[in-house]
């Protein structure tokens, strides 16, 4: 891979990129836990109620038949409690297991095997792209990409799909789904003190999207966009934008067509130390391949000049002037 990432660097990046990866399933876990507690509390109180009724009857010398029928009621409520409890626990357990799966995936960033490490990096990019595509509203593409990359478990598709349903219903001027969503998330929305005014549809959709992101603590821009911006800046040099295009490099990502346009408004890389690259070969020019200046002022690597030498002459690739090989002078870069 072109970019070197040490284990320490990978971990620093984890810290800034992966919050949504873990927080979103956690919020689901929290939600399901509260729902489970509510279910258990409710069914428990039902059981307690029928038992209290039975106890009351017992104190008044009841006939066996009436006790039997009350017992039936107790059995029924206990069964409902059992069923609901099992279902709720299963649901919470599922979300906890999802959290676990994601954490396990993140741990794999530090794998010793290079193949596993590059697979992890590829999946990382795919994960961020999926989130970005979901934010842009390209749901089908996002789902397809997630499937093809094998990362369906690792991306928050569901959250965005729920959002999509709400948005679409709002576009149809229906508030039901949106209100249901609000109800679902009401305890957290309440903390945000936000109000949705049903009269303003377009704004409503925007507002909903904004609240949804904030609810899940996602900012305005996708992690993918912010990462890409930083990356383009770190590679961008003035040579990528020379007017005559003479200093473009075929390998430089910022020199490539689309990325060149994208990187235009971004800051350039800061380089405190010189590094020289031969225009002919793309190899580094250093003690092993010293930079040589031709009489026209253009500099190339010694090894490259050797390789283009013919009959003791060299032709400057950029100006086409012909010089003697011996006319090349070594330059010293500190």
């Amino acid at each position, binding site marked *: 891979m072109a970019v070197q990432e040490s284990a320490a660097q990978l971990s620093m990046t984890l810290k800034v990129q992966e919050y949504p990866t873990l927080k979103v399933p956690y919020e689901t876990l929290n939600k399901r836990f509260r729902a489970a507690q509510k279910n258990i509390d409710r069914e428990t109180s039902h059981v307690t109620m029928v038992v209290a009724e039975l106890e009351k009857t017992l104190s008044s010398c009841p006939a066996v038949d009436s006790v039997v029928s009350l017992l039936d009621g107790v059995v029924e409520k206990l069964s409902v409690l059992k069923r609901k409890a099992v279902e709720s626990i299963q649901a919470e357990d599922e979300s906890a297991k999802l959290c676990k799966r994601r954490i396990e995936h993140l741990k794999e960033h530090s794998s010793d095997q290079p193949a596993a490490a590059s697979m992890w990096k*590829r999946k990382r990019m795919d994960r961020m792209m999926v989130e970005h595509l979901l934010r842009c509203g390209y749901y089908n593409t996002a789902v397809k990409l997630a499937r093809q990359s094998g990362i369906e478990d690792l991306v928050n598709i569901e959250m965005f799909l729920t959002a999509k349903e709400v948005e679409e219903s709002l576009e149809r001027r229906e508030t039901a789904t949106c209100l249901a969503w609000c109800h679902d998330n009401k305890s957290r929305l309440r903390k945000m003190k936000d109000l949705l005014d049903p009269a303003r549809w377009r704004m409503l959709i925007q507002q909903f999207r904004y609240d949804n992101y904030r609810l899940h603590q996602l900012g305005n821009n996708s992690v993918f966009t912010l990462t890409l911006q930083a990356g383009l800046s770190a590679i961008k040099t003035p040579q990528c934008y020379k007017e005559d295009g003479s200093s473009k490099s075929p390998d430089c990502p910022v020199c490539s067509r689309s990325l060149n346009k994208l990187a235009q408004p971004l800051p350039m890389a800061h380089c405190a130390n010189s590094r020289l690259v031969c225009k002919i070969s793309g190899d580094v020019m250093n003690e092993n391949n010293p930079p040589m200046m031709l009489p026209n002022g253009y500099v190339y690597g010694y090894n490259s000049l050797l390789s283009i030498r013919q009959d003791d002459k060299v032709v400057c690739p950029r100006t086409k002037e012909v010089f003697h090989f011996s006319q090349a002078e070594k330059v010293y870069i500190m």
Partner: protein
Amino acid sequence: MSWSLPVTCTLMETVSTGWAEMLRPGLTVLVRMGRESGETASEAAMEQCASVEREVDKVLQKFLTYGQHCEQSLEELLHHVGQLRAELASAALQGTPLSATLSLVMSQCCRKIKDTVQKLASDHKDIHSSVSRVGKAIDRNFDSEICGVVSDAVWDSREKQQQILQMAIVEHLYQQGMLSVAEELCQESTLNVDLDFKQPFLELNRILEALHEQDLGPALEWAVSHRQRLLELNSSLEFKLHRLHFIRLLAGGPEKQLEALSYARHFQPFARLHQREIQVMMGSLVYLRLGLEKSPYCHLLDNSHWAEICETFTRDACSLLGLSVESPLSVSFASGCVALPVLMNIKAVIEQRQCTGVWSHKDELPIEIELGMKCWYHSVFACPILRQQTSDSNPPIKLICGHVISRDALNKLINGGKLKCPYCPMEQNPADGKRIIF
């Protein structure tokens, strides 16, 4: 923002000069931490994930235990009540009043039911703290807010930029061979991609799919038609394809012997370059009757050859097309993964020192990002004296002694019409300096 992130030790040298003084105290702290960490950086990182994982494991354990306990207790209760009901429902007791004994038993049962279910409810509530500890561990170990390196709206305000970004993603998907995803994105974003652009990828993909099915035909056809350029690249693709075909014939057993021998004539043009490998293959014919798997040549039947041929083909085809194997978007994204935490770190330092105005220097990043030598695509010359990148308005100048400094530095060094090179004491005429171009 945590201060415990390690930063490279060259931090002081890499921050642009104008900022160093302002930021020095804060940076010293970071540099010291950087020096201390190193090894411990990756430990800290593992701890990050491990810490959250620990809490999740505890919750999973609690759910498991609670679930089992809940089911068991309720089963017992139901069983007990069931028994009681059966007893009461027996014909002998029909229509009679409840006996005192049974009444007592019933009361005890009621109490037990109430106690059990109430405990179940409160036991579940107790799990809440473990659940919220997971959230807290996440909050503690991961940053909830990610900020932009440049102003947030730099791509928003230009809708065209968003479209160009989508296009870049489409191009990336084509290059990665994810054709159906690329098509879907084109549809959803209503982008139009030139057929000219798509064509080579469609062809590449067709050939790769055939190779995955172990069909060498399309690949061979392609290799033959691009033979000249592949030779220029020193590619051995064509030979490898023939070799794979030969090996497959061998795997067919003794009946394929004639066919294999006849196919061997394809090796003729490669005799010089691949002599050794051809000898190996010819040698393996001896074991055809015995079965290649049991011979010293069994490694020829390795499945890895097929994976390798796909890689070789992709690499050579990309070279021919003038593409790198890693798409520009991949490289830029990976570069961003390195740059982002460093830049966020420095932004935090700046905000801490309350010199936010300095960040608005939008032309250049405030700090150098080390991506490794493979990412040195362009020459960069930083004047060793003024510590600034040279530009068209301030180009690098070679002095007579061969040392190179920027023109601004040269002008600063002029003393009484003469110039002394700062690296060797050679005195010279400023006019003798020659502008160089990397």
